[in-house]
């Protein structure tokens, strides 16, 4: 199948060909891919595409899957409203 038509990250609209282009430019880790193309940065926070991205990195660079690092998860796996944080902070005072 044409890698241009294989969508890896639906949230950020990144195709397999986009990943290949980044690999060729010298970007080889999840952390780098997500910064240039927002791979894994969408509303699902890589729940959908994460494993596929790891798999494609492993295949392309001929590395064992287990050696490909997943991207750093940041605090908040679900969004919290700023107002809710403010109210909780006010309650503590």
């Amino acid at each position, binding site marked *: 199948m044409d890698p241009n038509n294989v969508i890896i990250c639906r949230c950020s609209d990144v195709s397999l060909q986009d990943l290949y282009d980044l690999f060729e430019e*010298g970007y*080889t880790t999840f952390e*780098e891919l997500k910064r240039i193309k927002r791979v894994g940065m969408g509303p699902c926070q890589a729940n959908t595409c994460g494993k596929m991205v790891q798999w494609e990195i492993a295949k392309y660079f001929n590395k064992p899957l287990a050696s490909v690092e997943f991207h750093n998860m*940041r605090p*908040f796996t679900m969004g*919290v409203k*700023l*107002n809710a*944080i403010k109210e909780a902070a006010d309650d503590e005072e």
Partner: protein
Amino acid sequence: MKNKALPNTADVVIIGGGVSGCSIAWNLAKQGQKNIVVIEREYLTSGATGRCGAGVRQQWATKANCILAKQSVEFFEQAQAILEYDGDVEFKQEGYLIVSSTPEETAQFKKNVRLQNSLGIPSKLLTKAEAKQIVPHLNTDVIDAATFCGTDGHLNPFTMTDAYYKAAKRLGVSFYTYTTVEDIDVKNGAIHAVKTNKGTIKTDVVVNAAGGWAKEIGEMAGVDIPVFSENHEILVTEPVEKMQGPMVISFSHNIYCQQTPHGAFIMGRGDKNMPKGHDVSSSWTFLDDMSKTVTTLLPPIGELRVIRQWGGLYNISPDHQPIISDAKDVKGFYMACGFSGHGFMLAPMTGLLLSELILGKTPSLPMEDMALDRFEGKEITEFETSVV
């Protein structure tokens, strides 16, 4: 890029793959310098560059910062074409609205605007009502006045750095990521070699563009750089429909907040009690303080969901202006650091000026205000006050 073996020699070794290192590399290569190597401990933008607020402004309180910022904006306006970039650097010029909270602060802002205008920066003082026209959800009960400059704005740190990287690579610059500089050899007062965890490179010229680790890199070469690092926290919300054009900032409320072209809001603030060091962790205190501040100044933003928070290092100099300089005691050692929280927006001038200094050309701007030796034996009395 990381599979190549490190070369044994180079004409210039740049330490740090942030926006400064990449801009310096491109500027040097463009002026004909060969054999340039950039060494980065992790990946490009893994330091402050990839953690920053993406803001570009010319409204400063010192002459040096104003001029550096203005000429950098002129570059950003053309960056896409000059660097022949295939991506999008997302330069959005919808202004910075800087609000004051007291008449005293407004008086200082008037002085700033006079200085900015004298240097050709099109900023102006606004009443509360005028400010509200630009940002309708601004709570004018907690402000006194504002200044606005329409050519300030937002720029994507990742793609901007990528643009410099690709352009530099096309001119022959070699980049080595996941490679750490561990020591610098100085012989008879001159740079001799750079030692990394992957090998040693002989070179006469080293550029310290190591951001939060600039002091430590200086120590490796025996150069004392009076800077320190400090964690600054920041958060991002879910993307939403466009509702805010300019960046809104307040020094007295301690906040900057803008909506990126992608739709997400990013906002940050400083913390006076933050210890010096290299820690970049995230805290609840920041979230609590940030939520209170933003809901006071820009109430409707309270309805947005936070999706991530992180921290990054400010590298702070005694007068809050950058150090773009050589080192008098170590020949071949150059530095670009101490940006004090605004080095992303100055990158074009950082690269231009430092490359001219390295190549022995007459710099495009007088550089005394950026020299390392400006601090020697002097009490710092004038410093940039317009910082969050």
